[in-house]
């Protein structure tokens, strides 16, 4: 894939940005940096989102089906979503508008949205 995703960060800078995240989340984002693929994105984005879940449980969002509803099924409230979006904006150097966030209802829609942002040519 042509998009040099996350090349603005070295691996150690990614680790610095994700201090406090579980190692598997860090590994998923580093995997995304190395592969720059929509497939790798499917691991990284749920890991970032899971970190901000208010319940504190280490829910594995990577195994959830695309149809899982963010609010009703996964407990992602609006502030959790805003925190995760802010982190993705920092990491991926993208801008996510409020109206765009408001339209995302399921995990699948979120993954598709981020993929569109990062790999518009796909």
């Amino acid at each position: 894939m042509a998009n040099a995703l996350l090349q603005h960060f070295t691996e150690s800078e990614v680790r610095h940005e994700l201090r406090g995240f579980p190692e598997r989340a860090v590994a998923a984002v580093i995997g995304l940096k190395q592969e720059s693929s929509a497939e790798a994105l499917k691991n990284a984005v749920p890991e970032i989102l899971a970190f901000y879940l208010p319940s504190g449980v280490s829910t594995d969002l990577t195994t959830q089906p695309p149809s899982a509803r963010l609010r009703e099924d996964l407990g992602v409230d609006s502030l959790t979503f805003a925190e995760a979006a802010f982190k993705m904006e920092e990491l991926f150097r993208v801008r996510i508008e409020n109206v765009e966030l408001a339209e995302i209802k399921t995990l699948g829609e979120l993954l598709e949205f981020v993929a569109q942002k990062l790999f518009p040519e796909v």
Partner: protein
Amino acid sequence: MNQSSVVITGMGFVSSIGCDTEAVVDHLRRGRHGFSRVELRQGVDLPIKVVGTVPGYAFPSPDVRDWVLPPESHVDLCREPSLPPHGVYAVDAAEQAIAQAGLTSDQLGDGSTGLFGASSGSPMLLRHHLSVYDKDGSQRGHPLGVVRSVAGTLNFNLAARYGIRGASCGFVSACASSSHALGSAYDEIALGRQDRMIVVGAEECAAESILPFDAMRALSTHADPDMACRPFDQARDGFVVSGGAVALVLERASLAKRAPLARLVGWGQAADGYHVASPHPEGTGIVTAMKRALQFAKVDEAAIDYVNAHATSTPAGDRAEALALRSVFGAASPAVVSTKGLTGHGLSLSGVLEAALTVLSLRGGFLPGNRNLKNPDEACEGLCLPTESMDADVKLAINNSSGFGGANVCHVLAQP
């Protein structure tokens, strides 16, 4: 004790002189201060070199991942991203107070319990969040930036954490803030609106909250932690800022499950009507506040054993309060002590901190001493200013606080 009696049943300390009651009493009785040399800006030689730091905690940057908490802290930083540094202090103080009072989660959440907070917010985080917003023209910031940095952050965070469904409010009158919170909490119970109230005062004590006072030339520039803070002394040159948190649980006496620590008998307040930042030269507002508090409490001034003075170690403030005390007590001065000589000035925190220290004197049968008081200001003539801690049967005491705008508050506290 009548139906409307208000008692204090829980206290929590996260302070420069200790993070539990035993440590705080030890500092008071032995005259040990809580000051340290610090470097507020790394590599910059600032005039302010001494502050009252809180042992076991460190907040070296706005990044929560750099923060250090003691093992006994109740805060999980990963799971509570809305807490500022002083919110962390506040949670740990509130946990101590709630445990001592024996309050259950049902009591906290059934609407009969309220919570009042007092702080300046977190200037460090406010500055940080705005810098992130402006960085590279991103116009994006942390979504919790507001609730973790503005002045109401204590009551936002703690009311949500404890499921408070009663009164919840923050108080902002600078260095009288938590004294207003405590007095107003008394009113909530005395007026029958709430059965119990939690009052929390806290300050973060970061460069962003300290240095603006240097711009006012209100801070001591003394470099020696042993000598910087000298309330009522002729050589005082300003106050020393300290951080931390103190929480008190107030309850309607008839409902308290645990033995009361002390009674809050009443309070009074009055403003100077004089200047935005300077006290009235003769302390007219604090005179009225003391008289109103004593009148409300139906206590004669001659019955007061101890005054926990506001005196911060500034030339103007200490002098005004000394003259006010002479005006109220005449030739029969009770013991007057500024515990800021030991703790430093906790700004919004100071009122509830000093109310709690006064409770320790009522309970423990001792007076703290005025640390570093060698040559009292001539305005103190006739005041009884002990310089060493001593045993004393303190039955009735008052606690004074003053803030910007000439706001003055006085609490009357008694043995249970």
